[in-house]
């Protein structure tokens, strides 16, 4: 189909474009997304995995239980997800890169530990393989219900989170390394929002042969010089890691001074929260990853992420073939939200796998005219190419999305 479509500009902005160009020696496999996530973590230097089984993320734990002993790492089975994430936070404080993986029900249980890791600036990676909900939903069906939960992953406010979402098995591999890099660079937990399709899907996967030769992997840095700031200071945007290598440390969930002592002073509260927020907000140029197709001349732009983006992209190309100048934006970085991708004043059609309308609200906020933003929500199943093409055609020709079965278009 794409060969019939008119030429259209495509752009992928992500660090792994260069990585993939530089590292070409390796193995080419047919593997699952969970395998790619596991190997990506191992390649990034993850040496501790603490988790709890839950479909569709169980395979990550299974692969980890096999792979980590082979590379001198530690696999820990915990009694629940809360313990899993706390164990990872402890492992990271102890000096090793750590990861945990779960699905929606476990992700909500992790939020206590998530907030604790944010405030204590503990680098680690959480994989959430989203399935359709609410609650347990269907274990074998994809969903995109955790877009906002991943942003507001803890109570209390005053923080920013980093959330990435892959849309292919190969991308899951590179993106996991990237997630570890960002976690180390910004000293914060990073969520990988994958979904049941990406996790369980088997696809072509290239894996570089020598993980030690990957020069882009950010190593665990330790600052052994005094005075050290376990949790950073107002002057220092992102402090180096000081933990786990013989340095003294004071870690607390309360508002703390730069040395880590509890304090109930407004100045300390402001200093801490400004830093937690600004270390991410001021570095959005380093955080934004996305893919676009033909947005420059588009009359209507489709927006999606994750597994869903694959059919949406094909739908956009199909719409182009039908004579609609359609564009496509695939978000890879979901949070901090890349407002700059929505500068063109055209109608946006946001396709996501929930009826709530989560991503669409952010697009409405960032687009020049929120009233031109349309919603195509679907539950438990990817959008079909026909649906997306019909939606884009409808918006381009009549300004409305036609009535389609099981597609929700209202945002309230």
């Amino acid at each position, binding site marked *: 189909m794409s060969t019939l479509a008119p030429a259209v500009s495509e752009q992928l902005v992500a660090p792994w474009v260069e990585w993939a160009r530089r590292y070409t020696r390796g193995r080419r496999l047919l593997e699952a997304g969970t395998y790619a996530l596991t190997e990506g973590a191992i390649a990034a230097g993850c040496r501790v995995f603490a988790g709890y089984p839950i479909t569709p993320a169980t395979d990550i734990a299974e692969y980890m239980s096999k792979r980590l002993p082979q590379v001198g790492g530690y696999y820990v089975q915990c*009694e629940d997800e809360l313990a899993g994430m706390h164990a990872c936070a402890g492992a990271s404080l102890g000096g090793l890169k750590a990861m945990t993986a779960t699905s929606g029900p476990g992700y909500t249980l992790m939020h206590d530990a998530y907030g604790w890791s944010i405030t204590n600036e503990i680098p680690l990676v959480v994989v959430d393989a989203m399935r359709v909900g609410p609650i347990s939903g269907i274990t074998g069906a994809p969903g995109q219900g955790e877009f906002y939960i991943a942003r507001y992953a803890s109570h209390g406010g005053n923080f920013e989170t980093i959330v990435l979402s892959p849309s292919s098995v190969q991308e899951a591999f590179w993106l996991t390394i990237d997630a570890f890099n960002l976690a180390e660079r910004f000293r914060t937990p990073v969520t990988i929002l994958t979904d049941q399709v990406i996790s369980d899907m088997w696809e072509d996967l290239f894996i570089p042969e020598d993980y030690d030769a990957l020069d882009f992997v950010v190593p665990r840095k330790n600052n052994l010089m005094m005075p050290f700031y376990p949790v950073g200071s107002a002057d220092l945007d992102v402090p180096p890691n000081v933990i786990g290598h013989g340095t003294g440390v004071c870690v607390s969930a309360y508002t703390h001074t730069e040395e880590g002592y509890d304090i109930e002073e407004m100045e300390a509260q402001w200093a801490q929260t400004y830093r937690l927020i600004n270390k991410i907000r001021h570095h959005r140029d380093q955080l934004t990853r996305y893919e676009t197709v033909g947005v420059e001349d588009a009359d209507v732009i489709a927006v999606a992420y994750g597994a869903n983006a694959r059919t949406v992209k094909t739908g956009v190309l199909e719409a182009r073939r039908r004579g609609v100048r359609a564009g496509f934006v695939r978000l890879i970085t979901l949070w901090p939200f890349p407002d700059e991708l929505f500068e063109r004043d055209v109608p946006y059609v946001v396709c996501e796998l929930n009826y709530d309308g989560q991503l669409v609200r952010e697009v409405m906020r960032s687009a020049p005219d929120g009233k031109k933003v349309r919603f195509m929500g679907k539950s438990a199943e990817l959008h079909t190419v026909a649906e997306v093409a019909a939606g884009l055609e409808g918006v381009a020709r009549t300004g409305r999305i036609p009535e389609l079965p099981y597609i929700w278009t209202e945002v309230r």
Partner: protein
Amino acid sequence: MADATTFTNDTQILEPFRGIKKVTIEEYFTSGHRTCQGCESALVMKLMVKASGPRTIVLGSTGCMYVANTTYYTTPWVVPWMHTQLGSSGSAALGTAAGLKALMKKGKMKSEPINVIAFCGDGGGADMGLNGISATLTHKDYNCLILLYDNESYANTDIQLSGMTPYGANTTFSPPGKTHRIIHKRWKKNMAGMMAAGHPECRYVATVCASYAVEMMNKVRRALTIGGPTFIHSLDPCPKGWDYDPMLSHELGELAIETGIFPLYEMEDGELRYYGKTKAIVDGRARKPVREYLLKQGRFAHFTEEDLAYFQEKIDEMWDKWEVPGVVPFKRTDAAKAAPSQK
């Protein structure tokens, strides 16, 4: 037994079945489930609700028996049944019992004793839901029975390690390899002992095995008759997770007891009573070697003589060195008290 009452609410007075011929014919867990061939947990469910009778509410947290029992418009349940979130079985039972009590107290429903049974797996009960169960066992004003069905793995998500998985077992999270033969090195939790020792106001704690069906049912009936929060731990051989021929389910349950790996006892108002084959072991009958039990299961197929000896040693310790054999793992300080090994 007729005078047995709870602290506040009356309970149903369920006399023990005197032999297999006296067991009621009615079934409250019938056809319509999709458990594996040879599934002992399904049998435990069936016997449990047969013992408790029609005026019963069964609930519990996610586990293999929860995903296998109400799929695609089929269900074996005749009594009300509730599938709660993972880890919540104790709390949900407490809430249900409290809700019933409040409605009866206010006269909004007919005042009658209703059995509330929380049926939870080893993952949902002994790992994640341990805190909820422990808290429930301290609420003496509410009648609910927590029955932990222990198939020694997360069978729902395809046999992962749980806190109740025995030492060295092969699960998808602990695959034996050439370099590391034994991946799972943690010893199994002593769940019933922990519940009995740690909850002074819990009036009844028992261990059961469905291989001894009538006794198992009678323990359930006793727990429900006594009232208050009570706890029963059931060992359920699982053909899929333990990797054996489904026809051996009963035999493995018997072997677990005869080898002394799983003791059968009940604790009523603080008084311990061993029963069945376990009583014979305590009275001096020789235990079978653990290898008879372990080598019948594929999950221990990688065990060497060394591993078998280690396992045997731990079980011997349980019977020879524990303060209360098989129940309380405090080591005896007085060596003179120690009974000779009964290998």
